[in-house]
């Protein structure tokens, strides 16, 4: 036995690995399972949270401004509820009674900070010469004349009406603000569970960032579960086709399952230990399990397939395992390390979840590599395989098919190369068509409940995308109040903006009331004293909290809130730029103005996504090139390894441009995945080229390499069809990732067999010469 051990491998590290699997299989399995269990136990800390704001770095201007606004004015994330019946007036006592019940139930809930609706709106009115501050809706049960009074009051005060009633007066709008931005899913479920029974006689629509953020965890959970099922089914199918052995398939699935559990547990542990938002599981992370599943499968399937081949010739289990691992340990390590490196380059992304994505994936891949290199051969060596079984003694139909496909590629390399080059050129032209979009509603398929609801809020209501302008200065100063009104007028000129409100509007309204309800006085008073008198008068009967969403306690910070319908990326950039210019040209420099809100966050996200995609491509190509150069001891190999990848990335983005697939924080991760996974093909090719170049003459070299490595590459690409599971996602960008990854796997594998082989053939004198030296 000892003598046989020394023959395991001529390399000490490979020998050690093989010894652990073959000589101590139970110990290896046990230790692997213990570590897996420890890692997987972090799943209890695993948290799903898709808050867009958490994607932004904390030191970014719009994030700082956003946090300041949240601190001063409470959470600005709100859930919008619209209820009524299309085409029928909502102004009737039954609807107002339902609204009253809803308001009371919401206000009595501990998760709710504030409810804004007609039932608790404050009325400032001039009644028989009195300035009267009171409730707009006095009680639950109203007479027809009470209802008519409310309608008339709102028609006199359109800025209030726009917030609380739809334009055609067929829906009431309720805004529900949470106490804080944590646990938005619980808040969302609470709001829905309160509203649904009370408003059962009406059409109900929900919207707003808080609603989307709150809905996402359940959708993400559901999506991950269904994707995993689809992914596992696809994997089992591919594996069964290839291996034709249930135990073989089960062993690969074991590696996949254990890797997945470890990765998700790792994410939980890191979140627990660091408390960093980077390790929250967002919509973007939904693709992670499928990607790991595919990568882990790729490792496992190589081991089992190679083992079957070896067993076919060697007829004995242990020598077959030894031979398998001796030839695969290096390629598996190399493909893993390059994939890990590609994912780790995501830490350069300015988007927070991308960092967590990269690190977590790297951890998952590391563990998949460990299990494939140690535990899987240990498990294989323990089973008594039937050498006469069809799975082992005969080639599979898949294997035969791949052979044929390889021959087609080899027989027509120029044709395949030309087609590939054409695709790359087309891809380059498509690059300019790529657009960026981060609007979450476009992530859901049209016709789904959530998309319909969001579209309704956008088309029929005020829209729910907010624009907030924070002004620091003396808010009782008429000049500042006039500036606020002017800025609001400017904002409202944009046809997508439906409403804008601030404390300046309240001052105008109070001014009119004090001046005997004369509409000519619905302007900002001319002196600070007058403004102050108005506030003092209001304080004699109004609630001090009435203005808390518009001005701070000391009247030193004011907030303009505007609501807009969904804008395109270009519109967002144009709008924010114009608003910044307006402020610069019209505001006194002593007024510190900060623009924030979802619209600015979207703008910043767009900039970051573009940066993230570019950084990620450059860094991963450079890192992969360096790693390949080091391992293959030639810079030229490093450069050649990244050529098929670069082509695939260009084609990927070009196709996104042609098919109108927007670049978002979800699809931005594509380049890293393509590079990380696609590099495996080049590594297989280069490793084989270098090995065979020592024994085969240069004129036959490329053909022999392709003959030998074609199966491995196509097998790898075939295994990677598991990415197709992402097509079953409920989220459109994840579906796009699925489709594009399948295409990218085909293009990178064929690119390796054509572009890389053609280049290697052209440069073989330099490559072989140095290699032999």
């Amino acid at each position: 036995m000892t003598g046989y051990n020394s023959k395991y491998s001529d390399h000490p590290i490979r020998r050690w690995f093989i010894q652990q699997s073959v000589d101590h299989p139970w110990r290896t399995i046990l230790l692997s399972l213990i570590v897996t269990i420890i890692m997987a136990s972090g799943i209890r800390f695993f948290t799903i949270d898709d808050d867009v704001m958490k994607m932004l770095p904390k030191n970014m201007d719009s994030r700082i401004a956003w946090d300041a606004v949240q601190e001063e004015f409470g959470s600005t994330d709100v859930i919008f509820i619209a209820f009524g019946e299309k085409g029928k007036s909502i102004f009737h006592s039954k609807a107002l009674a339902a609204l009253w019940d809803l308001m009371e139930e919401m206000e009595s809930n501990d998760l709710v900070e504030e409810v804004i609706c007609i039932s608790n709106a404050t009325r400032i009115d001039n009644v028989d010469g009195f300035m009267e501050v009171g409730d707009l809706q006095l009680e639950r049960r109203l007479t027809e004349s009470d209802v008519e009074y409310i309608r008339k009051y709102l028609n006199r005060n359109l800025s209030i009406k726009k917030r609380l009633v739809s334009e055609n007066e067929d829906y009431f709008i309720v805004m529900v603000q949470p106490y804080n931005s944590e646990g938005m899913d619980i808040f969302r479920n609470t709001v829905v569970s309160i509203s649904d029974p009370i408003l059962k006689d009406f059409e109900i629509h929900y919207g707003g960032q808080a609603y989307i953020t709150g809905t996402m965890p359940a959708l993400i959970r559901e999506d991950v579960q269904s994707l995993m099922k689809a992914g596992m089914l696809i994997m089992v199918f591919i594996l069964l086709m290839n291996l034709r052995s249930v135990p073989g398939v089960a062993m690969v699935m074991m590696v996949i399952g254990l890797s997945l559990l470890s990765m998700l547990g790792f994410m939980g542990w890191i979140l627990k230990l660091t408390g960093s938002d980077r390790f929250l599981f967002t919509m973007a992370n939904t693709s992670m399990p499928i990607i790991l599943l595919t990568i882990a499968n790729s490792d496992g399937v190589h081991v089992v397939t190679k083992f079957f081949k070896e067993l076919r010739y060697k007829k004995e289990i242990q020598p077959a395992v030894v031979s398998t691992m001796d030839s695969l340990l290096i390629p598996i390590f190399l493909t893993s390390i390059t994939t890990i490196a590609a994912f780790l380059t995501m830490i350069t992304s300015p988007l927070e979840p991308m960092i967590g994505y990269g690190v977590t994936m790297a951890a998952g891949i590391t563990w998949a590599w460990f299990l494939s290199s140690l535990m899987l051969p240990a498990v294989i060596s323990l089973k008594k395989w039937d050498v006469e079984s069809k799975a082992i003694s005969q080639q599979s139909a898949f294997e035969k098919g791949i052979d044929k496909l390889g021959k087609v590629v080899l027989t027509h390399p120029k044709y395949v190369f030309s087609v590939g080059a054409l695709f790359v050129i087309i891809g380059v032209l498509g690059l300019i068509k790529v657009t960026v979009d981060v609007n979450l509603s476009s992530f859901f398929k049209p016709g789904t409940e959530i998309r319909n609801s969001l579209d309704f809020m956008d088309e029929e209501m005020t829209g729910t995308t907010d624009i907030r302008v924070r002004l620091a200065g003396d808010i009782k100063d008429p000049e500042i109040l006039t500036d606020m009104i002017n800025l609001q007028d400017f904002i409202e000129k944009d046809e997508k903006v439906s409403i804008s409100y601030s404390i300046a509007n309240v001052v105008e309204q109070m001014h009119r009331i004090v001046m005997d309800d004369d509409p000519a006085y619905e302007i900002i008073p001319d002196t600070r004293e007058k403004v102050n008198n108005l506030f003092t008068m209001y304080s004699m009967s109004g609630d001090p909290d009435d203005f808390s969403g518009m001005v701070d306690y000391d009247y030193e910070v004011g907030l303009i809130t505007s609501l807009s319908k969904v804008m395109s990326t270009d519109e967002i950039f144009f709008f924010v730029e114009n608003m910044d210019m307006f402020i610069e040209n019209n505001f006194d420099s002593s007024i510190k103005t900060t623009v924030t809100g979802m619209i600015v966050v979207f703008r910043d996200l767009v900039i970051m996504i573009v940066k993230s995609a570019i950084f990620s491509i450059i860094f991963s190509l450079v890192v992969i090139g360096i790693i390949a150069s080091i391992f293959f001891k030639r810079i030229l190999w490093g450069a050649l390894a990244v050529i098929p990848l670069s082509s695939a990335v260009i084609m990927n983005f070009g196709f996104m441009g042609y098919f109108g697939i927007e670049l978002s924080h979800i699809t931005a991760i594509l380049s890293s995945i393509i590079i990380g996974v696609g590099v495996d093909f080049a590594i297989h090719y280069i490793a084989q080229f270098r090995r065979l170049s020592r024994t085969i003459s240069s004129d036959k070299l490329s053909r022999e390499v392709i003959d030998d490595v074609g199966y491995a590459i196509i097998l790898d690409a075939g295994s990677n069809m598991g990415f197709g599971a992402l097509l079953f996602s409920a989220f459109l960008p994840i579906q796009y990732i699925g489709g594009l990854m399948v295409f990218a796997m085909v293009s990178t594998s064929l690119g390796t067999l054509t572009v890389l082989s053609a280049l290697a053939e052209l440069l073989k004198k330099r490559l072989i010469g140095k290699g032999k030296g």
Partner: protein
Amino acid sequence: MKISIIVITFLSILFGQTGFEIAKMVDEKPSPIDMSNMTKMVLTNSKGKSRTNIMVSKSTGGNEKQIIWFMEPKDDKGVAFLKIEHDDKDDEMRMWLPAFKKVRRISSKKKGDSFMGSDMSYEDLSNRELNENEYNRLKDETVNGIECYVLEIIPKKELKSSYTKHISWIAKNGLYGVKEESFDKRGILLKKKEYTFQKLQEYFIIDRVFVENVQKQHSTEVTFLDVKVDSGIDDGLFHEKNLKRMPR
């Protein structure tokens, strides 16, 4: 009927006064005919930010008629407020707005409305009518060394109060309130109130009130300085024209 009267009489003898009897004693205790003071009101929000107002107040009939002149902050100097309560109609409230040079009548339909942005509502400031509430006597307690009756006060429905109940601690010696807790319409604690009194002539006169809205984490501290009672304030003072005349 006879049996129940016997039972109530027996319990009354056994346990002392009923809640209603204690409330009646409080209601009937002597109060000044008129009062004037300098009022300092400090409002503090949940973030610890404060606003201070200083006012001069004159009132008669236990605040049935009251005139207030704002002295501080500087922004509010000159603003004045006149309130005259009526039993049979809405209270009259007028304000002098010096910047507009106008007297404006204001009205609040809600008892629960805040008075001057403080944690005290008009309901908190008005005299509690004996017959508009039900009183239950709870177990006596000692608060800060002061022996107190403890009453549960439940406003009757017709009062349309913004509270469901109050728990009030009343000093046995002097019959003045030491503290009170008020519960909102859901029955959840809303405000905690603490009072300190001084003896002036034969009256126990309030000299500090601290009210905390526990739900909003906002508090109000009112201190009454330079208090004078029964100084013979002329009823003619409570007129609109006097709003413009700041006291010296």
